[in-house]
Structure formats: C-alpha cells, structure tokens
C-alpha cells in the first residue's frame, strides 16, 4: 500500500508542476498570464494555511479554557459544531462539483498497471486528505486535545483526539463517496442532467439552512437562561441533526468533558460506523464507475445537417452558425446547464429569505419586490455565465481549430460568440423571470420591462469586453468539468466581476432612483431604453476592437485551445 501511495502522491505532484510549467510554444503575454494564473491559487492556499493555523490556535486556547473550567463549554461547543458543519458541507460540495477533475479512475494508463481496483480506490480515497478544506480543520482537531490536556482534563483530551480522528475518517470517506457517486452519475448524460438539476435545487435549499437554523437557535438562546439551554437549542434544530458527524463530534466532546472517555464511546462508535458506511458507498460507486461506459445522446440533437443549419434573425449566416454552435455546446455541458438553472433557485431563495428573515439579507425586505428580485437574478446570471463569456475562444478546444481553418472572419466569430452567450444568458434570465413572477408577482409591467431591458443592456456592454479578455487571457478549460478545470483565467474572472458591477450600475441606479424613489416608472423605462441604445452604440465599436484583437492573438489562441 505505502509504495503505491507514494507513487500516486508523486504523480499528483508532478502533474501539478507540469500544469504550472507550461510550454515554450507561448508568447510573452501568455507566459505572463500563466504566472498570474498560478498566483491566485497560491494566494488562496496561503490564506487557507494561515486561517487553518489561526483556527488551530483558537482550538488550543479554547481547549485550555474549557479543560481548566475557565469558561462555560456550551458556546465553545456550539462554535465547534457550527464550524465543523460548514466544513462538512464545503467538503461535500467540493467533492460533488469536482468529480471530473483528473480523477485517477479516469486514467486508462493507471488501470493497465498491476494495481487492483480495490487498491486504486483506497489510494483515491486517501488522496481526499489533500482537500484544502480538510487540511484547514486538521490543526484544530489535533490542537483541541492538546489544549484540553494542558488545561488539566486528560480524559476529555483522549476523547477529543479519538473523536477528531474518527471525524477526519468520516470527512475523508464522505468526500470520496460523494466524488465517486458523482463520477458514476455523470457517466450517463441523462442521469447527469437529473443530477445537475437536483444539485442546483439541493444547493439552494441548503443555502437556506444556516439562516433558518441560526435564526431558530438565536431565538431559543434568547428565551432560555441557565440550565435547560442545551435541550432547548437541540430541540430547535431539524430532526436528524444529531446524526450529523459534526453533532456526533460535539456530543463526544460534551460527554468526555462530563464523564471522561467512558461516556463518549457511543458518539465515537457512531462516527466510525458512518465512516464505514460511507467507505462502502464509495467503494460500490467506484466499482460501478469502472464498469460503466459514458453514454447518452443529448436531447434535441440534430441527425440531419439541414435541420441543424438554422439562421438566427439579425445575424449573418456565419455569425448564426457560431452562435448556434455556442448555444448547443454550452447546453450540453454540466456547467452550461448549471449556468442556465442556477439563477432561478437563487431568486427563489432570496424571495423566501426576504419574507421569512428580512434582517438576514442586505436590503432587508426590499427583496419581496419582484422586479428587484429579477434584477438580482440577472446580475447573478452574468456571474454564472463567466465560465463561457470570459474564455469564449479557448473553451472550444479543438472546435476553435475548426473555426480558424474555415473562411470565418474574426468579426463574425466575435459577433456569433456574443450572440451565442447572449442566448444562454436569455435562457437563464427567462427562468429567473418565471421564479420572480411566481414568488413576487406584483409590480407594474413597466417595472418588469425596465429590469429586463437593463439586464440585456448590461450584457450588451459586457460582451465585447469579455471577447477582449478571452483573446488576451485564454485557458485550455474543459466546460464538461464543474470544478476549477472549467474555469476561465483567474484574472479574466476578476476583471469580469468588476465589469459586471460597472455595467450593471447605471441600470440599477435607474431602477432604484427613478422607479423606487421618484416612483415614475414610465420615465424609468424611457431612461432604460435610452441606456440600452447607448450600450448598443458603445458595444458595436468595442466588438470591432475585439475582432481586431484576435488577429495578433490567433496563434496563441490556437496553441492554448489545442493543448492537451
């Protein structure tokens, strides 16, 4: 086992170095872009290491304070349970969204080596330990027992150590089970579609939980005083919460503090049982993944060339072809479906939260207003669309080679891409509109129209800037991947984030000032239409500029898109 593990860790390390090294076949801007792309994850890692060490120090201090009975253990335990719950969720989401990121299972070469499938699975499961979020809590899980020991409670320290190791095992197995199950699901495109939908809806429901639970716990804390507080808080949590690994860990700590190691065997045993069950799920999913081939034709795929060759209104045949290809390829990727589906549930969450817990949202109860909700959905949709807009050329991979080999002028390519991404955005916006209408149907037609026009004008301004950034900072991304493997260049994303804010500011100002403060919706709509016309007038020369920018970057784009 150890030699295999060593070999696989070395393999991962070399793959990481290889991805950073790049190739000599790159121009100066591309080399700079690669350096910048490496800086962002490095800074994130540094931040996580610092935060992890800080959390470890806090755990050491907290352990000492509780062990020496200097403080009431209840707030410390609540904090520990809360932090561990958040980490559990993040680990789960990370594993679910990153199943296609260069997993060892996918490597044919590894499967031809004399390594049993079981060993391959065990090694893969153990590599989950390299998850930065797991590494983030490891110092805290190890230093809390040290703090308890220093504080003079040796029994509780032993319990904390054992429970910490058991919790770590649960987290590793959870990450592995989620990744393997996700990978198995995504082998079948039909199943992948259902998975994506469930994932988006589940994520939205999950995002409601902290606010709802936090609010209930807060109310119970206010009501209860002294003894009986713990029972009231526990009652305020949803049913099934005690089985959560973070809760079992908290329970083990509590029992350890009260009764020493003898009282904590049940929660620690339950944690080990959960780890075992999750490991079994992971192994089963791994076996199924190896035995399954990737299948499934997409819905609505054309089998006849004439049926596929459509022309979009207002576009040349060439730009139409590019736009339709962009739309088709986007909607056939998991990420593309996420882009279309995600803003609508977000609008739903905002709407529900603004009604139930107005104090939890910036802006309070203002989000009960339908057009404003739609506006929020429109901005979020633009952010979600960045994986397509901010790397629109290189994301085509081999398809970009085809486009460069055809008699396709750069102008038609840029316009087609802008229209194609615009169609994806329009689909996302339409779903957000339906959700906003469903949850807050009030408001005048003028308000709704103004927000829609504002959303489209924001995209109109953003499209040429996105084309320019895509030409300057291309990345060989794979939009079939839901994790970072499908992301555009970090700098392009950062610039895109700022640009979305800048482009959305004027329409947002018109909606807030003219519609809300002055209450003159007709004037607001007229101003918005004027802004849309101005945006279009600005976008046309900017699109020409973007088309001219492709010429000098053509070779680099072809090399980046074609890189394996």
């Amino acid at each position, binding site marked *: 086992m150890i030699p295999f593990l060593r070999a696989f860790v070395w393999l991962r390390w070399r793959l990481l170095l290889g991805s950073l090294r790049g190739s000599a076949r790159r121009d100066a801007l591309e080399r700079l872009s690669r350096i910048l792309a490496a800086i962002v994850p490095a800074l994130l890692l540094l931040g996580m290491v610092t935060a992890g060490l800080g959390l470890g120090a806090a755990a050491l201090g907290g352990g000492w304070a509780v062990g020496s009975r200097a403080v009431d253990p209840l707030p410390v335990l609540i904090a520990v349970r809360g932090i561990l719950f958040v980490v559990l969720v993040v680990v789960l989401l990370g594993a679910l969204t990153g199943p296609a990121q260069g997993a060892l299972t996918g490597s044919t070469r590894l499967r031809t080596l004399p390594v049993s499938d079981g060993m391959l699975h065990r090694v893969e499961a153990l590599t989950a330990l390299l998850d930065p979020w797991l590494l983030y809590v490891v110092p805290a899980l190890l230093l809390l027992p040290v703090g308890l020991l220093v504080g003079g409670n040796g029994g509780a320290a032993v319990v904390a150590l054992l429970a910490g190791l058991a919790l770590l095992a649960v987290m590793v197995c959870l990450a592995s089970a989620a990744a393997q199950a996700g990978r198995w699901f995504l082998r079948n495109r039909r199943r992948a579609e259902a998975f994506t939908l469930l994932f988006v809806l589940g994520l939205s429901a999950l995002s409601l939980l902290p606010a709802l639970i936090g609010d209930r716990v807060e109310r119970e804390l206010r009501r209860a005083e002294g003894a009986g507080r713990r029972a009231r808080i526990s009652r305020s949590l949803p049913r099934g919460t005690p089985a959560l690994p973070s809760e079992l860990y908290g329970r083990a700590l509590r029992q350890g503090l009260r009764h020493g190691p003898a009282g904590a065997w049940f929660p620690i045993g339950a944690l080990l049982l959960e780890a075992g069950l999750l490991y079994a799920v992971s192994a089963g999913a791994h076996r199924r993944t190896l035995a399954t081939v990737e299948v499934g034709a997409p819905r609505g795929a054309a089998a006849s060339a004439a049926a596929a060759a459509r022309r979009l209104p207002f576009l040349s045949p060439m730009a139409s072809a590019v736009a339709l290809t962009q739309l088709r390829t986007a909607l056939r990727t998991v990420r593309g479906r996420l882009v279309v589906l995600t803003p609508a549930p977000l609008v739903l969450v905002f709407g529900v939260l603004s009604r139930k817990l107005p104090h939890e949202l910036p802006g309070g109860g203002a989000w009960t207003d339908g057009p404003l909700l739609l506006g929020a959905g429109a901005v979020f949709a633009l952010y979600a669309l960045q994986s397509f807009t901010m790397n629109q050329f290189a994301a085509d991979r081999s398809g970009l080679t085809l486009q460069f080999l055809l008699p*396709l002028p750069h102008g038609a390519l840029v316009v087609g891409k802008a229209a194609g991404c615009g169609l994806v955005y329009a689909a996302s916006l339409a779903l957000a509109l339906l959700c906003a209408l469903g949850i807050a149907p009030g408001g005048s037609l003028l308000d709704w129209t103004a927000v829609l026009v504002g959303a489209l004008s924001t995209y109109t301004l953003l499209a040429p800037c996105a084309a320019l950034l895509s030409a300057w900072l291309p990345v060989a991304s794979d939009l079939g991947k839901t994790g970072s493997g499908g992301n555009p260049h970090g700098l392009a994303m950062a610039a895109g984030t700022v640009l979305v804010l800048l482009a959305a500011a004027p329409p947002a100002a018109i909606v807030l000032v003219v519609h809300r403060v002055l209450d003159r919706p007709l004037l607001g709509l007229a101003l918005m239409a004027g802004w849309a016309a101005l945006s279009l007038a600005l976008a046309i020369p900017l699109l020409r500029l973007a088309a001219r920018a492709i010429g000098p970057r053509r070779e680099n784009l072809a090399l980046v898109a074609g890189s394996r």
Partner: protein
Amino acid sequence: MELALETHGLRKEFGDVCAVDGIDLVVPRGSFYGFLGQNGAGKSTTIKCLTGLLRPTAGSFRILGLDPTVDAVTIRRQIGVVPEDLGLFERLTAAETLAFVGQIHGLGRDVLDARARELLAFLDLARAAGELVTDYSHGMRKKLALAAALLPGPRLLFLDEPFEGIDAVGSRKIRRLLADFVAGGGTVFLTSHVLEIVEHLCDQVGVLHRGRLVAQGPLQVLREAAGRSRTLEELFLELVAAPAGQATTLDWLSG
C-alpha cells in the same frame, strides 16, 4: 508548371527551438504530395503554418496562387484541412458539425443536406450522425474531420495523418476517393507514417528531417536517383539516417 503550393524559406521557431528550418516546398496542382518525416520532424507545424493556425517566423508562401497575408479568407474558402487535433466540437453531432461548416462556407440548405448525407453514408457515419462527437471512436472522428474538409468541395486538401486509426475498409474507400479527387484536378498534401500508402498514392514526395527538407520531387525521380530497386521505406530510412535493423540492446525483453 502551375503550383498549388509553394514556400520560400518557410521557418517557424518556438523560443529557442526551430521546428521548421527554411523549407522550400513545391507542390504542383493536381498532384498527390506525400510529406514524410519522423515524429517531431516538423510536418504538423508546417501544415499549421500553411493553413494559418501558426504564423511563420520567416519566409513566404503562396497557396493556389494567392498570398495568405492578403487573401487569407479567400484561401480558406478553397482548401480543406484535417488538422492534427482534428478540429471538432466535442459536443456537436456529426450532422451539426457538417451544418456548421456548410453554413460558414455559405452552402444552401439543399446542397448542404445532399452533400452531408452522401459524405456520411460514404464514410459509414450515417447511423451515428445524431450522436455527439465525444462518443465517437478515434477512427470515426477522423472520418468526420475528413467529411468536414471535403464538404465545401475544396481544390486543395491538407491531411495530417488521414489514415491513422481508420479501419481497412474505410482506408481503402478513402484512398480511392482521394485518388479520384486528384484525378479530377484537385491537389492533396498529406502526411503519413504508413509508407506503403504514400508509395501507392503519391506521385510527389517531400522528406522533412529535423525541420529541414532533405528531399523533394516526383517519387519516381527520387527512387531512380537512389537506385531503381529501392522501396520508399529504404529511401526514407537512408534520408533520415536511421539504418534499418539497428541492433536492439533491450536484451531483457527476449529473456
């Protein structure tokens, strides 16, 4: 002699590495030109330069009498390319891929549909026309890339390893198709490591070795210069200085 392709001192450097070192290609119209070389000799880089995917560091070239620095789009209307990476969208079907190519070339719907059906049927892809390229085998992808190159009716074809991964039946069909294309006045510029195919199909040959063109001309003339009985394989091995039957030192494999 009318030329389909001519290069003058074509050179391509990547940093310190010179991939193509000042080559002068001469490809007559209506010829079947085999561009040979070992792995890494610079064949694919040359094709990428000629088809506009890479910008040459130095030198000039003309394709079908046109200057690519002036008439790049016009040239692309008249050529078909099967590039090294095949140039396919993974998440389009074969029919959608051909529709895309046809639309860019401005083919009418009827012409596009008729040609696409004929090509897909000829290349045994008709039944898989509605499947995504990502589900295709390597050979199927290659056939689709060839169909996309042929669809607009080009006058010059650049084919990078067109027979690699293709089954025997398909390979024979494609060879006959290409021979007919050349007989009809078209020009084919292909790279291949299968020297038997090159010997059988090509009337012109160029040999690239470490970025330099070490031989070029009609196959017959090259063979005569080297001794009539020589096969193309023997000629090639002599040109790239890789003696046949080099003694292996991997003794442990035979034990």
